[in-house]
């Protein structure tokens, strides 16, 4: 083992250094004070540094001997292949541990040496940093397992991509809470589970050599290609979201609008330049064109598309449930309020000062918020209904007198534009700028700005909230994206109107057909799950919006039938190649469950070459010249 560690020394050392540099830079790029004292909600650079370094680590560990050309030299050692694997895993473990311990340490030392406020370092931030490294673990395991598989470079790349591109978003999705933040426990557990699965594959691959002229053993196929099929299915489903969304929004663009003109409601298509062409109930154009200046009055469309599409497919850093209020305030410096109520004031000249309520600098209540107001900052404690204003000279907060007949709701801000909000403009005395973001205190009754140490009510400042989208006269169509019905509200002035929207023209059918085709190509297993799931507000990217919530059972069945057809063809091809029965069973099942993704993978992974039976018939050729010697029994 010691000797094996010695030969891995180079990459262990190199990746130690590289990873620590990358992670340190990533940690510090979010700001040392923010990271170590306040604690940040999202560590985007660290997340991306962790997974990319992890993948590189895994791949290098697995391919080191292959790249050096010492693979066969190593195979000939008197060492069991399993011990070789364990030695490599030891190397990976030591590198990961080094990153976990040394990168935060380096970043903290840098922070302590070149930044202010290190004395306020909170230990909790170290825990968050450690969690930030967890994607490195799963990525390293995935990179290692995929790169250890005995097959060609590009297949290993495809397999690694399928595992990683499905696994990481899957963990992201499973650990996401209702408030769109991530639960730390599930996040860590998910990544550890990914790593364990990948390592199981790596162990299954032990002792197998790449050989394009032989099929994989069935055990390895199940272990390695099973997860690949699942991953590829998920990725294909997620990627099909985009063309499907494009088809659906195209359909909504070409559907006719219900237009109101005078007292009437009619179906019509927008023709541009203020003109609407009326269409029949079958969506066929008529000769009638409605124009605003034709005496029809105000012609307006009355429904607006509101597609409930699944989430977009992206690889994103987790967002921790932590609310840090931070605000920059010009010459006074930067203020921070952490979620546990501690607050800091950071200034380039005075350094970092912790401040709080009153002379004693008590922390604020949990859930307090901080905002710049007037020429200083105020802290709002919603539970106690109090406002605290920072006195820059005394470096602590003093309470603000509140109007007796009002209750403070929140610290708010609003963009004011010259020419639009001129009344407020003069009332607030804003200088000569075209627009300005005005922070203010929103009360239940009035809204206020801070003048000196007094709250001054400004009428009309908080009025922008009233214009909620609910007042839009248009009807929103949320339900199904392809077929939905429109009915005029009973209290409307116009005569009652009702229309069932469904694709009727060739163009509409083509757009709907595009969306349905995308559904057919999705994995039937996922379609079935989506069919059973309720229609959520933001479904995960692999679910099909057309079947969610128990709709279109026929589409699920059609997808299943298509997959069954593909499975039959896959099985026929494999039988022709001469694959054994378990192999055929594996791919048939995979294709029935995961559709075209599995069928394509079967073609990619099972090549005719591996199954070709080229054996020559005996007798074997014998040498022309031979010396015959008597041979005893072979040594046992």
């Amino acid at each position, binding site marked *: 083992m010691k000797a094996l560690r010695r030969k891995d020394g180079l990459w262990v050392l190199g990746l130690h250094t590289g990873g620590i540099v990358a992670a340190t830079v990533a940690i510090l790029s979010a700001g040392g004070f923010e990271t170590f004292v306040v604690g940040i909600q999202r560590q985007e650079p660290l997340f991306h540094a962790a997974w990319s370094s992890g993948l590189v680590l895994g791949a290098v560990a697995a391919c080191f001997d292959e790249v050096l050309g010492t693979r066969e030299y190593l195979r000939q*050692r008197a060492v069991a292949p399993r011990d070789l694997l364990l030695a490599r895993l030891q190397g990976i473990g030591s590198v990961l541990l080094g990153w976990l311990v040394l990168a935060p340490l380096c970043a903290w030392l840098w922070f302590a040496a070149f930044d202010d406020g290190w004395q306020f370092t909170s230990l909790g931030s170290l825990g968050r940093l450690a969690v930030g490294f967890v994607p490195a673990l799963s990525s390293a395991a995935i990179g290692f397992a995929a790169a250890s598989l005995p097959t060609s470079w590009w297949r290993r790349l495809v397999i690694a991509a399928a595992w990683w591109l499905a696994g990481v978003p899957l963990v992201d999705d499973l650990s996401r809470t209702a408030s769109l933040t991530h639960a730390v426990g599930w996040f860590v557990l998910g990544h550890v589970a990914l790593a364990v699965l990948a390592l199981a594959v790596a162990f299954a691959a032990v002792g197998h050599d790449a050989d394009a002229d032989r099929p994989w053993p069935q055990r390895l196929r199940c272990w390695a290609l099973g997860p690949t099929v699942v991953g590829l299915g998920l990725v294909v489903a997620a990627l099909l979201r985009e063309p499907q969304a494009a088809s659906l929004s195209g359909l909504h663009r070409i559907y006719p609008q219900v237009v109101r003109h005078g007292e009437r409601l009619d179906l019509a298509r927008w023709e541009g330049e203020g003109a609407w062409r009326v269409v029949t109930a079958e969506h066929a154009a008529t000769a009638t064109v409605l124009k605003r200046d034709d005496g029809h009055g105000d012609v307006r469309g009355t429904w607006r598309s509101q597609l409930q599409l699944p989430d977009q497919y992206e690889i994103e850093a987790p967002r921790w449930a932590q609310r840090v209020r931070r605000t920059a305030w010009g010459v006074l410096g930067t203020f921070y309020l952490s979620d546990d109520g501690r607050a800091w004031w950071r200034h380039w000249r005075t350094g970092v000062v912790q401040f709080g309520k009153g002379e004693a600098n008590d922390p604020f209540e949990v859930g307090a918020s901080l905002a710049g107001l007037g020429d200083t900052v105020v802290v709002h404690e919603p539970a106690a209904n109090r406002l605290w204003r920072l006195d820059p000279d005394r470096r602590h907060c003093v309470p603000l007198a509140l109007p007796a007949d009002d209750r403070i709701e929140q610290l708010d801000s609003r963009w004011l534009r010259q020419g639009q909000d001129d009344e407020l403009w003069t009332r607030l005395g804003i200088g000569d700028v075209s627009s300005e973001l005005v922070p203010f205190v929103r009360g239940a009754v009035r809204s206020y700005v801070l003048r000196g140490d007094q709250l001054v009510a400004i009428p009309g400042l908080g009025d922008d909230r009233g214009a909620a989208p609910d007042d839009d006269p248009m009807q929103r169509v949320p339900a199904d994206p392809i077929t939905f019905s429109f009915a005029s509200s009973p209290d409307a002035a116009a005569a009652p109107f009702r229309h069932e929207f469904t694709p009727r023209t060739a163009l509409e059918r083509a757009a709907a057909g595009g969306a349905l085709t995308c559904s057919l190509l999705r994995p039937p297993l996922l379609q079935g799950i989506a069919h059973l799931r309720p229609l959520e507000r933001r479904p995960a990217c692999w679910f099909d919006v057309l079947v969610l919530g128990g709709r279109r059972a026929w589409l699920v069945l059609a997808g299943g039938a298509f997959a069954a057809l593909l499975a039959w063809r896959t099985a026929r091809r494999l039988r022709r190649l001469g694959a054994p029965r378990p192999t055929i069973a594996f791919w048939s099942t995979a294709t029935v469950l995961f559709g075209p993704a599995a069928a394509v993978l079967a073609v990619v992974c099972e090549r005719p070459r591996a199954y*070709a039976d080229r054996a020559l018939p005996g007798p074997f*050729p014998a*040498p022309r010249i031979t*010396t015959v*010697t008597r041979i005893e029994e*072979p*040594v046992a």
Partner: protein
Amino acid sequence: MTVILEFDGVQRWFGEQRVLRGLSLRVEQGQVYALLGRNGAGKTTALRLLLGFLQPHRGTVRVLGHDPRDLGPAVRARIGYVGEDHRLYPTMSVGDAIAFEAGTRPGFRRTFVDRALERCGLRPAQRIPRLSRGQRAQLSLILAVASNPELLVCDDPALGLDVVMRRELLDALIDLLADTGCSVLFSSHFLGDVERIADRIGILHDGALLVDATLDDLKQRVARCTWVPAHGAVPPTGPHVLRVAPRRGGHDLTLLDAPPALLDDLRRRGELSPPVPPSLEDLFLDLTGPDRPGLLAEPIGELAARSGAGGGR
């Protein structure tokens, strides 16, 4: 004699390319077996099959009584291997490489290695990438034999070495043979070296052995002569004629187990030079040269018929 390794009807393809089409050979205890053949004849494939880096499509391979597919560490420890390109870790120094070898093979003879290093002028501080090809080859061989293997497998160990280095390598091999009496299977292009140390040679051609015989036997049984036929006489054919090469005024004949009747017949029909045994190089050229595409190993039936008629020894 006990069998150390054995190929039995081994067939192996790479895609459409048939590399071995029924290789059968045996190496007995203490024997030095040289596997010869032109580039691409399948020598390296055969050795990789032997060490379990590759699986055969048909046939069986046994080494030290085991299937190479599941060679455990204990069996691998009994086999020394010098790869084609003397691959060692370029990240290491000579000392590191020795320590690595010592740590991964039981029975490592430290004193032997120290003495051998001294003899060929290698210092432990030298970096592997800075070694010359010959030094790397020597180091590989020293490491391969350092743990007293029962079987040494070398894939063209002398490739790319100069004359002096080749001789050094040969000396190291001779020392090993004298010390331990281990069996050796090696492939080589240097027929002079092969003539010095091989007990038995196999000439691999087109995926099967064309020759599998002891060197002494070859020299006794194969004869070359020049024949200038009388006007109109046609060159002889048959199982005893390995090659007929036209030359000025006549033919160069390579004969196998030439019976006196054949020689008499040739003398009657033309002028025949006294038959002399060929050197290994001549024999190799005669059997595998570019003008011999048709000379292949023959089906086993014919062999049986011939050895039944007293052709074999």
